[in-house]
């Protein structure tokens, strides 16, 4: 009985030493981890700033494009009136030249619309940045939990882990491998009777 107790105490002592050693190692790793994670909120703020900056830049390009579109629309109306007037006084050659200019303006209108739609890159980039921000925030929450659990930092409450990072990461990864293009979407739509 005595031997058994001695053995048990010995094993308990060994276990306690192992635990203490593990805690010390975690503390050694955790302290720099805690300080390394301090810039994370600034990093997320910078990422969100990127969204804001690209949005502002994109809106400015759109504003200028729309001004050109409006000018084109006015010029096209004027040209149409002039072409009619010239045809009425039998200036066919001049009317044809103006009509050609009007046609070139119409081509430019198509290009302007292409510029507008190409600017949708900003929306796609912003959506990815938002997902990345969610991932960074989730990692930050988990780091803070680690810091508090292992007593590396006493102050501050434990934030609730949102657990959204995995889902955001899954969505980002999925967009690389399984995202469908419009033609495949159309194929699926037609399977469901969309003509």
């Amino acid at each position: 009985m005595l031997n058994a107790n001695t053995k048990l105490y010995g094993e308990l002592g060994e276990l306690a030493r192992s635990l203490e050693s593990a805690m010390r190692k975690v503390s050694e790793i955790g302290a720099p981890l805690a300080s390394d994670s301090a810039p994370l909120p600034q990093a997320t703020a910078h990422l969100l700033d990127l969204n804001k900056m690209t949005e502002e830049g994109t809106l400015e390009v759109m504003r200028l494009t729309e001004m050109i579109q409006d000018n084109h629309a006015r010029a096209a109306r004027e040209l149409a009136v002039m072409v009619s007037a010239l045809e009425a006084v039998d200036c066919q050659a001049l009317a044809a030249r103006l009509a050609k200019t009007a046609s070139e303006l119409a081509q430019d209108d198509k290009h302007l619309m292409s510029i507008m739609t190409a600017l949708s890159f900003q929306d796609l980039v912003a959506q990815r940045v938002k997902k990345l921000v969610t991932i960074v925030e989730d990692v930050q929450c988990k780091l803070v939990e680690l810091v508090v659990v292992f007593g590396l930092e006493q102050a501050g409450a434990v934030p609730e882990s949102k657990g959204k990072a995995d889902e955001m990461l899954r969505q980002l990864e999925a967009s690389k491998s399984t995202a469908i293009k419009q033609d495949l979407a159309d194929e699926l739509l037609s399977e469901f009777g969309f003509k």
Partner: protein
Amino acid sequence: MPADPNMKILVVDDMSTMRRIVMNIMKQLGFAHVEEAENGEGALLKLRAGSFGFIISDWNMPVMTGIDLLRAVRADDKLKTIPFLMVTAEAQKDNLLEAIQAGVSNYIVKPFTAEVLQEKMNKIFK
């Protein structure tokens, strides 16, 4: 029946750039009465207040998503017949199937061109 150029169109997207792109395309296509909302909740308020003939909505939005808006529209007796075009970066097959089940009129994957938008509108309003 082609789309009535006088019909009211609601563009729903949380990104101001996307709303502007879609509104610009609508204007170039000859639709003068285009309004906008930042999310599904704001869209529902506008839809219930005015007589809209067409909804173009993003999927991924805060407060109320596009798919929730679609379900809410289809569940509302006064709104359920409004054609609903989903324009989204949510390009997974499951998303598309979910939208079809919810009663979407058509579906556009971002990025898209003005021609694709026009083609989808023509299909919806033919």
